[in-house]
């Protein structure tokens, strides 16, 4: 050691307890995110309109097909399709995280340098910021969901247990997706072609998560495969919790699998971060 820093004549600030401070950090960052998002009301509404275009198209297509097939497709009625895609809009918004493509921007613009200088892990910052953003989005989502419900008449009758599990499941989905998007985003430390991997990830997610169509409509082997990959646990599972008729055991098992994927994602994120940061050249500032 070069110097006993404790003896330096500089004012020292006392530190609050670690967990209390972390909670304070999350709440403050979430408040900051809300404050920032509220600056752009019109942008937010346009964003939401763009976001519901995809499920509304799906809804129209599947309810039409259901009507033409005597009221259901593979046992899913028009009302259940409506419930699926209306809940989908909320789950989709909960699944918005600091996306992999933005890692390149973060490095190039020097944002990462600024974040590295602070005594807070970047994962906490991303999780807290986007968690705050959710509250703005959910506020905007409510009137849209009411409007869609009035038009499409969803068949949705969740039990109190399903509602509680759903609340946990959408945050579980958020954590899983944050970790995996982060891992892919960190490929930018090794290659400038991280976008190709991201495209592959997104295509796989589209097919195997229940985002494009309910997994129930996919072939049996696809449904089996989806059980062993993270994607279903970020889309299909949270939606099914609310609209499906899962047993309490299945609900708990689903949450358990989410916890497992959060753990796997966290380990991968940590491993990637430790390696990536050694390669960081701080070119952006």
């Amino acid at each position, binding site marked *: 050691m070069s110097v006993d820093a404790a003896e330096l004549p500089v004012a020292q600030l006392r*530190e609050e307890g670690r967990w209390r*401070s972390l909670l304070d950090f999350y709440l403050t960052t979430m408040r*900051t995110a809300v404050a920032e998002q509220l600056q*752009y009301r019109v942008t937010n509404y346009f964003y939401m309109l763009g976001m519901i275009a995809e499920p509304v198209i799906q809804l129209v297509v599947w309810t039409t097909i259901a009507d033409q097939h005597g009221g259901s497709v593979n046992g899913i009625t028009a009302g259940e399709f409506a419930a699926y895609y209306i809940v989908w809009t909320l789950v989709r918004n909960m699944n918005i995280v600091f996306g992999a493509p933005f890692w390149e921007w973060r490095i190039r613009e020097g944002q990462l*340098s600024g974040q590295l*200088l602070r005594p807070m892990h970047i994962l906490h910052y991303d999780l807290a910021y986007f968690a705050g953003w959710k509250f703005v989005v959910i506020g905007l989502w409510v009137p849209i969901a009411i409007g869609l419900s009035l038009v499409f008449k969803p068949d949705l009758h969740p039990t109190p247990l399903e509602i509680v599990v759903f609340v946990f499941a959408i945050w579980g989905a958020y954590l899983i997706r944050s970790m995996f998007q982060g891992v892919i985003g960190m490929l930018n430390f090794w290659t400038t072609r991280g976008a190709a991997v991201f495209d592959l990830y997104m295509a796989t997610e589209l097919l195997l998560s229940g985002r494009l169509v309910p997994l129930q409509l996919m072939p049996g082997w696809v449904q089996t495969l989806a059980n062993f990959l993270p994607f279903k646990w970020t889309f299909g599972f949270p939606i099914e919790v609310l609209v499906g008729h899962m047993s309490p055991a299945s609900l708990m098992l689903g949450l358990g699998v989410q916890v497992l994927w959060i753990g796997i994602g966290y380990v991968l994120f940590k491993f990637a971060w430790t390696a990536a940061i050694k390669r960081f050249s701080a070119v952006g500032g």
Partner: protein
Amino acid sequence: MSDPASIIHVSELTKIFKVPEREAGLRAAAKSLVRRKNREVSAVDGISFEIAPGEVVGFLGPNGAGKTTTLKMLAGLLYPSGGEARVLGHVPSRRERDYLRRMTMVMGNRNQLQWDIPALDSFELNRAIYRLRREDFLEMRDELIELLDVGDLVRKPVRNLSLGERMKVEIVAALLHRPQVLFLDEPTIGLDVTMQKRIRTFVAEYNLRHGATVLLTSHYMADVEALCKRVIVIHHGRILFDGALSSLGDEFAAYKTIGVVLENGNAPLDEYGEIIHREEGRVTLRVPKAETSRVAARLLNDHDVLDLTIEEPPIEDVIELVFAQER
């Protein structure tokens, strides 16, 4: 061995970047798909120095000399390729929380504040990030706002501030946690003279009040002259000079200037030295350092001298000389 009294200890610090390289054109692009060519660039090449607590040191060098790379290694942003760095007893590249809480780095060309909301909200976020007690945070925040005179600015969204105003609130945000070590990378770049002076005065005041150690890079010699007694000159990743700013001229300038006003303002003075300036009877001569006294004596002897001054060359000229010598 590190000096036990130093707060920043750097020994044989090295940073090598691997830079991809290829010729222009489609053929070279296709070739690079199969085989990439990389070149190793030594940005910092085995530098060593020690900085004592409370020192304000100017880190000088032309663009690409390795100043910012060194600062980034000391701030923990970059992993060194070799050598050793210790700041406040910590190895910066480990980026330990305790270290990050006690240092700061301000980059003049980068904005770390939330763009769309008032700076006060960003300050609040920093309070949470640095885990500061509210009373300590408020005390420091108000002190910094007063010192930098930004009371009216901190309530405006950052995007509405001018460059200089943004830099001032940026500095407030960077110092809220009372860092013991400040790395300032071109803190006055792009600012007008008044704003530069304001920031210089502030850095000096902060150093006095809090005993903080400052390592500063700047292309403005006025910053360095106002703040730094000691300078480290770096070029091509190597240290060319480390010592008192006042002795930089002694070491590197091979000449001095003699200003002379003669009764006969038109007298030819070419034989005494190189005439670098002549205005309203006053002539400025550049003479080799070793001959200064002899030339001055000759001038006094040969002419009716009304006024004669001997001066060191301007510091900008000396720095230019240092870079030119690249010894």
